[in-house]
């Protein structure tokens, strides 16, 4: 059997094994990669950096466990940045699984790095509400109509940082960390655009392509996939080096780096095999025609 035939008939389990090794080995050795923040990510960082102390940031958790490797690092980086700058963080969710992801973030960020920040004064977790874009529309006009309590059931009137919040219009920035519907698009359509509230997003790599039509007028900036999260972390670490060890996206860029390289190599080999096979068939036809 020629090399061409072998390459053509390669067992897909070998490809699976190569991919598994390509992801596992960098996970074990954790290579450090240099990431440079792109303009679309820097705009989100610069906006949070420019807001005066006490400004209100609403962060929506619209994703679930399946996209945690991409979404959770961005959510954590934003939360760290917001709390570090002493801005007020309001956490909501339009996804059922989002509330749980926000709870996990509270454990890994608020209860670990920001124990001096007070619940209800510096950050609040309002939890999940059903209705998808209907929920956004409802809180756009009157936040308290829907959010009468926080996620733990405490009346919002008893939460100091909720006292001067009537609607989404009171927010200085909306950051949506999302991986589908409802997501950044719905926050732009039902809150950002009608209320002239800046909206920034953090989404999976697949979702990011769909949001470019909104950038830069309706969408302030965007973190797309793990690369976007790593770029935000790079910007955060450059300004606040104490967060170097907390940069999850930067730490797991290695497996993505190798996996993407592998896919490119597979595409190249697959195409080389295809063209070689086509040439062989062409030659065979010419030889057949002569005889």
């Amino acid at each position, binding site marked *: 059997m020629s090399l061409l035939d072998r390459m053509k008939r390669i067992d*897909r389990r070998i490809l699976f094994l190569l991919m598994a090794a390509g992801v596992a080995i960098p996970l074990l050795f954790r290579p450090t990669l240099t990431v440079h923040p792109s303009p679309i990510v820097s705009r989100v960082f610069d906006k949070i950096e420019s807001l005066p102390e006490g400004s209100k940031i609403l962060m929506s958790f619209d994703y679930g*466990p*399946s996209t945690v490797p991409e979404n959770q690092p961005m959510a954590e980086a934003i939360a760290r940045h917001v709390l570090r700058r002493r801005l007020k963080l309001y956490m909501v969710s339009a996804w059922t699984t989002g509330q*749980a992801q926000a*709870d996990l973030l509270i454990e890994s960020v608020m209860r670990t790095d920001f124990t001096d920040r007070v619940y209800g004064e510096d950050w609040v977790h309002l939890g999940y509400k*059903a209705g998808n874009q209907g929920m956004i529309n409802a809180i756009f006009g009157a936040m308290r109509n829907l959010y009468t309590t926080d996620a733990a059931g405490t009346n919002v009137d008893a939460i100091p940082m909720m006292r001067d919040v009537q609607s989404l219009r009171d927010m200085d920035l909306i950051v949506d960390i999302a991986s589908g519907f409802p997501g950044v698009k719905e926050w732009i359509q039902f809150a950002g655009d009608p209320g002239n509230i800046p909206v920034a997003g953090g989404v999976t790599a697949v979702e990011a392509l769909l949001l470019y039509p909104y950038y830069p007028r309706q969408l302030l900036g965007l973190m797309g996939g793990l690369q976007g999260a790593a770029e935000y972390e790079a910007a955060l670490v450059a300004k606040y080096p104490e967060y170097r060890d907390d940069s999850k996206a930067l730490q797991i860029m290695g497996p*993505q780096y190798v996996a993407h*390289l592998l*896919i490119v190599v597979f595409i190249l080999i*697959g195409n080389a095999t295809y063209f070689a096979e086509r040439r062989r068939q062409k030659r065979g036809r010419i030889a057949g025609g002569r005889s």
Partner: protein
Amino acid sequence: MKRQIPLIITFSVGALLVLAMFIPHDPFAAANDELSVWFDIIASFAFILGGGNLLRIHGDKIYRRRRDWPYSIVTLGGFLLMLGAGLWSGAVSRGNAMAPGSLFQALYVAAYAPMMSTMYSLLAFFVASASYRAFRAKTREATVLLLAAFVILVGRTPVGYHLTSWIPQPFEFLEIPNLFGWILAYPNTAGQRAIMIGIALGIISTSLRLILGIERSHLGGD
């Protein structure tokens, strides 16, 4: 009457919300706020409907021993376990089922999250296999798609930067991160906008048909 009352409700609410969009002042704005909350309350009932449907369909499948019925036991078992854990944890923690240390949180972190991550991670293997076998430059269009995919794949990691950072400044537009940005900002945006405008026009026409009572399939029957 069974058909006329829902049609009147659809027309009144639809027309009111369209007016509220263009006249964002009271009484339209107040009506919009109130109706949005009603919508969210109704949306919450979808969970009960969804849960009931799941129980009915899988219960029936198990009862009649239809094809692959043992999987339905797993589905119902998982559903009832999470539902029970959520209700129990919510009752114990006064409404917060995800309270640290609760049974629901433990199940979410130890079972649900790893299972969902595993399912999504399997995509990497399918993409690897597909990239080797299916992604071929068979036609001119496929070649363009392949080249764009190549730039996007490489541009999504620091590989692109490392591969092309040596390119001299007059030709820096050829650096992969710049090509990546160009593809997303121009060809991708143009295509996406065209699709989005088409979808929006479709939604407007469907909504108008519903509001005006031309489209009645949501009322059931013919």
